[in-house]
């Protein structure tokens, strides 16, 4: 069954939106319904992607609060938790609901408010996704990224410029994105000299914490301009060290392979990609795991400008997690919204529209590869 994306809505991602999780969710839900030109009464299912509202904003039952706020009655609704891929997981459930005939109009809301707790609390909440034996060692997401970056630079004889080039590109893309948290350029030198976070990674190799929300409306057999052709997920190992190779993220490879097969496309068909760059090293690893570049080649492609907005494969034209921001549960939905904008030809921001893309791919990753969801959208 065809699934159309008929409406999108998004807040600017910010370090402190000065709004509750529910307020952000409500705002983008209305925006998406307006964009789809439907009333809230038409919504038959609600799928809220959120990692930790109970811990970060003392909020449970978010899905029901959203329905109440929008006056949605009698819908099927729940909240989907898959850590930093909660947004794409919620989208996957919405597509399933439509394909199963349970819902003809689905509202997907991804949301997170991270500013209402202090950094220590936020760090502890996020690192609670690790295995117990990782947790006692004090491991955080940047720790895994630092180890992977160390292994990557060593194996492929690259230096930190290979990583910094990702940050520079994604910041440049975000300068003209009105929805981005950071709308400022970063030079290679600034990125290289920023304070170390998890060596070899520096501050500019890491995404920020953010508040934000993003919503889409999906319809069955819709005549929307954008079709959701495939959305596929795959789990990977929980304990990161159990991977045969530290540069392998099997969940990304598998989700990508499945989604491309289902959408009947090959790599050459993809005109734009949104990659889960929570750390610069992840953009490189995921591009390789997805098969866009051979192992050890993504950094060269990035340095050569081949993933720039004007390159052979524009990657993260909205700035990615790095510069657009990363409000956990909202990220996966915001990636797909960026693709929808690019495919519809109405990407907000001066000079941000790509040249006539037909096919877009997004990968949203939970934890450091515990679970990944790949979405492919096509212009109808």
């Amino acid at each position, binding site marked *: 069954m065809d699934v159309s994306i008929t409406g999108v809505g998004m807040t600017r991602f910010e370090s402190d939106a000065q709004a509750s999780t529910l307020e952000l969710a409500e705002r983008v839900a209305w925006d998406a319904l307006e964009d789809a030109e439907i009333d809230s009464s038409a919504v038959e299912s609600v799928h809220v992607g959120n990692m930790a509202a109970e811990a970060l904003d003392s909020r449970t039952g978010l899905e029901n609060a959203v329905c109440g706020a929008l006056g949605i009655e009698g819908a099927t609704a729940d909240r989907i938790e898959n850590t930093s891929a909660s947004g794409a997981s919620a989208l996957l459930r919405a597509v399933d609901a439509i394909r199963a005939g349970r819902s003809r109009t689905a509202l997907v809301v991804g949301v997170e408010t991270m500013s209402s707790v202090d950094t220590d609390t936020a760090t*502890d909440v996020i690192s609670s996704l690790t295995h117990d034996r990782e947790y006692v060692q*004090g491991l*955080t997401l940047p720790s*895994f990224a630092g*180890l992977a970056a160390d292994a990557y630079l060593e194996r492929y004889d690259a230096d930190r410029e290979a990583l910094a080039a990702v940050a520079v590109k994604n910041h440049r893309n975000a300068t003209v994105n009105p929805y981005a948290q950071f709308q400022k350029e970063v030079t290679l030198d600034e990125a290289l000299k920023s304070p170390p976070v998890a*060596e070899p*990674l520096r501050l500019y190799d890491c995404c920020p914490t953010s508040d934000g929300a993003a919503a889409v409306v999906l319809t069955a057999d819709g005549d929307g301009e954008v079709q959701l052709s495939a959305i596929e997920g795959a789990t990977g190992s*929980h304990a990161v*060290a*159990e991977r045969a190779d530290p540069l392998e993220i099997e969940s990304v490879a598998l989700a990508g392979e499945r989604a491309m097969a289902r959408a009947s496309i090959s790599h050459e068909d993809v005109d734009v990609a949104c990659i889960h760059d929570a750390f610069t090293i992840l953009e490189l690893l995921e591009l390789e795991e997805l098969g866009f570049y051979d192992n050890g080649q993504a950094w060269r492609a990035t340095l050569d400008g081949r993933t720039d907005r004007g390159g052979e494969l524009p990657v993260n034209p909205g700035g990615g997690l790095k510069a657009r921001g990363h409000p956990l549960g909202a990220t996966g939905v915001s990636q797909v919204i960026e693709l929808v904008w690019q495919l519809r030809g109405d990407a907000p921001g001066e000079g941000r529209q790509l040249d006539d893309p037909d096919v877009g791919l997004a990968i949203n990753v939970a934890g450091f590869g515990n679970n990944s969801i790949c979405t492919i959208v096509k212009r109808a």
Partner: protein
Amino acid sequence: MNESREPTVESDDAGQAFRCTNCSSSWYYTRGRCLDCGSSSFETYRLGPGRVVATTTVHATPPGVRTPNHLGLVRFDDGVSLIAQLESSGVSVGESVGFGEIVTLREGDATSIGPQLTTE
């Protein structure tokens, strides 16, 4: 959710791995059954020296964890791999490390102690 997680493994066992008494398969990351044969009968054993695959030094650490936190991804015999605290910085990829002194790994509601990896 402000309280820290209580580890399910006795933390002074951080230098120990698990071995299935039925099929001899080994693993480090605690689980209730052997993934190779499904047996729930296993023993612990002390990990011998392993080889460093990658290192990092983390400067922003969670509450109760030392700053900076030196970490190593290390491979041991029997296919066991883990990420654990290195006693000090300056350990290189390819070096041999083993578990040494018992120290505090993470302070909190349930303080975790265990051995750190050292080149000794």
